[in-house]
């Protein structure tokens, strides 16, 4: 055991003495969270909208004024027919079209209910979501004011349509996504590089000749990264909460436990990569292209899985981050317990065991 800890200490020295490694470990996560956080902002201002008012009575005019004077929206144009909607969006400036049904005011008076249709350009999913929510809030305000004035309960029935991206993804998507990306980057890429470096320098041979067992060598190499990845996970959660108000509704312990599971998965992948590569560059290349890009593209982090072609949807099943993102989104946003994410958890456990099993076999073959 003493042998082992001496070895782990050396691994920490490698990490702390290398500014580049330190930067990747601690600089990148912080920069990523801030970057994604401020790019995907949750404030909107001066968004251009178009209005199709098929009624033009005092209620619709009043509501239109209220929407435009809110400061969030600018009326780009009034349109005359439903056929123009498509063209308006294609021009690209207008983010939302509001449609009042004909006889809006009359319906309201007679039946106490009237229909508004909100059509948003959801090719930018997050903005669309925000725009719609803001509009609904304004309409809700308006309804309450009207109720106070008239005393009789009225009701608007807003019908929302998201064009181009029917499965809308929330703004909080990015924190789970970044966590999934950073953790796999640190745990898989950094461990595979650090193991392969020993092979490249020839020090691995010296270690294998020593009384350290192969398993101790591998464990010694990955132990520091378990700890550092864990610190990263906590940093991201705290930053998400403090800077961007990302909540943790569910159990913090469950969240951290799932993070550790995912870190272990990344490490076992890293070990696997290290057994099939000979140079550090190779290890980095494989980590980046086999892990990073699919994580970003296929995990549902940025592009919704539901909108992918079938074949990519199948591929995304094989992406560990997909399941991890689902798990932590559920825990952080919905506050669900293990009951609701056990399937994803089992998938991650199975993946970890498969990668570990493969790398142990590979490692043994190499020693023969």
């Amino acid at each position: 055991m003493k042998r082992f800890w001496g070895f782990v200490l050396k691994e920490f020295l490698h990490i702390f003495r290398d500014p580049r490694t330190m930067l990747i470990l601690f600089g990148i996560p912080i920069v990523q969270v801030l970057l994604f956080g401020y790019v995907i902002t949750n404030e909107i201002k001066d968004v251009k909208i178009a209005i199709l008012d098929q009624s033009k009575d005092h209620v619709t005019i009043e509501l239109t004024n209220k929407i435009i004077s809110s400061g969030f929206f600018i009326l780009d144009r009034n349109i005359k027919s439903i056929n123009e909607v498509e063209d308006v969006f294609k021009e690209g400036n207008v983010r939302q079209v509001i449609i009042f049904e004909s006889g809006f005011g009359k319906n309201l008076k007679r039946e106490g209910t009237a229909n508004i249709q909100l059509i948003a350009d959801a090719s930018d999913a997050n903005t669309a979501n925000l725009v719609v929510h803001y509009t609904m809030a304004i309409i809700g305000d308006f309804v309450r004011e009207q109720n106070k004035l008239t005393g009789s309960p009225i009701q608007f029935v807003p019908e929302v349509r998201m064009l181009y991206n029917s499965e809308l993804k929330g703004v909080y998507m990015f924190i789970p996504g970044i966590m999934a990306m950073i953790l796999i980057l640190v745990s898989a890429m950094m461990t595979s590089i650090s193991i392969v470096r020993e092979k490249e320098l020839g020090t691995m041979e010296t270690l294998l000749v020593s009384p350290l067992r192969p398993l101790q060598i591998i464990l010694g190499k990955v132990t520091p990264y378990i700890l550092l990845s864990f610190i990263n996970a906590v940093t991201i959660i705290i930053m998400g909460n403090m800077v961007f108000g990302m909540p943790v509704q569910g159990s913090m312990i469950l969240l951290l436990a799932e993070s550790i599971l995912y870190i272990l998965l990344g490490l076992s992948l890293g070990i696997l990569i290290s057994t099939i590569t000979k140079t550090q560059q190779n290890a980095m290349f494989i980590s980046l292209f086999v892990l990073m890009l699919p994580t970003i593209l296929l995990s549902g982090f940025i592009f919704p899985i539901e909108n992918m072609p079938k074949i990519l949807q199948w591929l995304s099943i094989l992406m560990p981050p997909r399941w991890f993102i689902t798990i932590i989104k559920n825990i952080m946003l919905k506050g669900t317990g293990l009951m609701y994410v056990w399937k994803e958890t089992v998938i991650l456990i199975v993946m970890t065991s498969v990668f570990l099993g493969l790398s142990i076999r590979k490692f043994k073959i190499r020693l023969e």
Partner: protein
Amino acid sequence: MSEQKETIITVKNLVKKFGDFKANDNLSFEVFKGEIFGFLGANGAGKTTAIKILCGLWVPTSGDIKVAGFDIYTQTEQIKKNIGYMSQKFSLYEDITVFENIRLFGGIYGLSRQEIAQRAADLMHRLDIEHSRDKLISSLPLGWRQKLAFSVAILHNPKLVFLDEPTGGVDPVTRRKFWDQIYEAADKGITVFVTTHYMDEAEYCDRVSIMVDGRIADLDTPSALKEKYSVKNMNEVFLKIARIKPDQNN
């Protein structure tokens, strides 16, 4: 020459195949306690394969092999505790300091903290690098690193140390100095098993085995070999042996 020689390595009919290629073809030899045993041959002659098998890194295809009294198939753990190893690439970590390297390898070989402190102080005093205790290995000149690597390889006082082309890429003067260190270790009773392709180094060994194409072409003391082939130096011995080989094949 002592009369009763204790063997520390016994190799009988060692064969190592990679597919159809025989890297080691039926090697048999003994290494005696306390001697400097040279393993000579051109690149690709099978020296490194043999040393890796003796260190327990690779498993041979067949053959009976004992190192430091332990069986290579079943007792690799004991073997590893009793040997030191230094490869042609540097065995020290360049991005940690002299003392940290000593502490690391001392720890790996199970030395206590006091032992490590004691031996580190001795070692740095002997090599006259006390002032570099907290300097990174990468800041030391090549010759020093090599000396230090060797000292670290025998820090745990092994019965036997394997040196795999330890002087690769080093000038003759530094090489000569390095050999002084090897003699010192041998004087302390550590058996030295060294592979090299520098023929001048062969002269420094007690006995040498010359490998050609995976086989041991000859094995004896340098003086006996020079006499046998009636030449003046080991380089000519080697050239003669290498030249005979193809004739035997035809």
